[in-house]
């Protein structure tokens, strides 16, 4: 009798787990299918390469695509070095003593802070404190002390920092002690061990952190809301170097962004019916773009893993 009860419970538990997993996956598939069929129709070369016209009810979304790529790349450039440095400090220079515990607890808490709080912090710290400060010292009238791409990317970088630190720390810890010992026994300094043995081994783990942070950062709206994202811009945030005429991304300009574009079309538009297909199309492009950015990092990672062998 007892055996039978046990078996029933076992089957029930297995069924429960399967049901839950199935539920999660079907929600994901439902979203992707809905977005795909809603948006695939509007995606044309013109949609991808032109700017919005007629109060966002027609035209394309190129400035938003451009802005999203710029800000994600800028975010990665800022967050990766800071995150790696923090993780190296935590694994190699602090142990389980008080300071290390405090820093780790802070990072875990930072990961739980709502993104809108990061956005407001970005305004207060980056724009008003750092930006205005730089302007005053350098004697600019208003260059750094306003919402621009630089500060939006910095705010996003802060947001993804915990993700990068935690994954990098795991990657560093997984480097075998025997390799560290081997290097120390040859007379390497701590920095040489980190630089020549630990980091090359941890490279693919660090790139995993980059992938996770792109996924997190590229679609965020709240942190960039007040820090540099624009409702509509007639031009791209591009600056042409005088004389040589080479266009470069201008991090001191405002930008348009896919996530914000979706938000304003869904909430601020006067003609919901006209913008609905564009919303779906923009969402699909955002998902696709995140996927492409991730794919490029994954290719990097495969390349590094191959080289390691």
């Amino acid at each position, binding site marked *: 009798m007892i055996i039978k009860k046990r078996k029933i419970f076992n089957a029930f538990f297995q069924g429960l787990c399967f049901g839950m997993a199935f539920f999660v996956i079907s929600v994901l598939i439902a979203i992707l299918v809905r977005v795909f069929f809603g948006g695939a129709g509007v995606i044309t070369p013109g949609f991808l390469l032109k700017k919005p016209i007629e109060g966002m009810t027609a035209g394309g979304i190129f400035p938003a695509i451009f802005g999203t790529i710029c800000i994600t790349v800028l975010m990665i450039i800022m967050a990766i070095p800071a995150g790696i440095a923090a993780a190296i400090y935590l694994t190699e220079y602090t142990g389980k003593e008080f300071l290390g515990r405090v820093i780790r607890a802070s990072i875990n808490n930072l990961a739980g802070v709502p993104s809108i709080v990061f956005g407001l912090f970005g305004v207060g710290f980056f724009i008003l404190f750092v930006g205005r400060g730089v302007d005053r010292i350098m004697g600019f009238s208003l260059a750094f002390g306003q919402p621009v791409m630089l500060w939006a990317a910095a705010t996003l970088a802060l947001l993804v920092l915990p993700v990068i630190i935690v994954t990098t720390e795991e990657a560093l810890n997984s480097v*075998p*002690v*025997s390799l560290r*010992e*081997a290097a120390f*026994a*040859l007379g*390497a300094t701590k920095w040489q061990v980190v630089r020549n043995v630990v980091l090359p081994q941890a490279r693919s783990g660090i790139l995993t952190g980059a992938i996770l942070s792109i996924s997190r950062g590229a679609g965020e709206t709240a942190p960039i809301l007040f820090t540099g994202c624009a409702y509509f811009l007639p031009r791209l945030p591009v600056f042409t170097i005088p004389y040589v005429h080479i266009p470069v991304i201008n991090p001191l300009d405002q930008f348009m962004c896919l996530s914000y574009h979706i938000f304003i079309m869904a909430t601020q538009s006067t003609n919901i019916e006209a913008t609905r297909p564009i919303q779906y199309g923009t969402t699909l492009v955002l998902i696709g773009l995140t996927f492409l950015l991730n794919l490029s990092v994954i290719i990097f990672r495969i390349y590094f893993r191959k080289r390691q062998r």
Partner: protein
Amino acid sequence: MNTRHKTKEQIKTKVKLEGLTFYYGKYKAIDNISMEFFECKVTAIIGPSGCGKSTLIKAINRISEITNDVKVEGKVLLDNKNVYDRDVDLVDLRRRVGMVFQRPNPFPKSIYDNVVFGPRLFGVNNKKQLDEIVEYSLTKSALWNEVKDRLNHSAISLSGGQQQRLCIARALAVDPEVLLMDEPCSALDPTATARIEELIEDLKKYYTIAIVTHNMQQAARISDYTGFLLNGQLMEYNITTDIFTNPDNKVTEDYITGRFG
């Protein structure tokens, strides 16, 4: 220098332990050991598991303190200079005292890059000079003929025995004076073990070698001096032939004849 050694067939002390006591945290791993390691001789450390053999030789290049909380009393003299003195440069100490570990631990890099790892740390970047170091070190570790055509292959592709000889070559590449070997054959098959033993026989012409081994036959075959450790204490230390044929201590005899351990 030392009159006693001049009279006694010209052997010179390279490393001398004076009342060495070694703690991991609160645990006393080595208890008041005094002994000497002689130049161009192989000294074997034998004893049952956990008796402090590895700790003893790792105390010489101070490698234990990287991963452990350690405390040391007494002295370890390398050429009459205490390596636990405050002004000792650990980087220089570890260059002079090379180490080969229990399990082969080559870096996941090419064979060439493994050997030049040490010299590069010290700023040698001249390609010709590095090439010479590679050929010299691999020849000395009896690996050159097997790998000379595939120096850019990954070290991980080598067999266990080859990997261990590569690790020896890597240690030799920084031109050490002392070579510490912590059970270098414990992860190898008998053929590979025999090759390493031959190699040690050859290397002792140039280096002071301290080898920890679990295998008493190995100690008897390759060493000139043998120390028997038990529970962190040096029970007996003498010329190898004496230890194995006519031990002073009853415990040593029991261990060597296989009554325990």
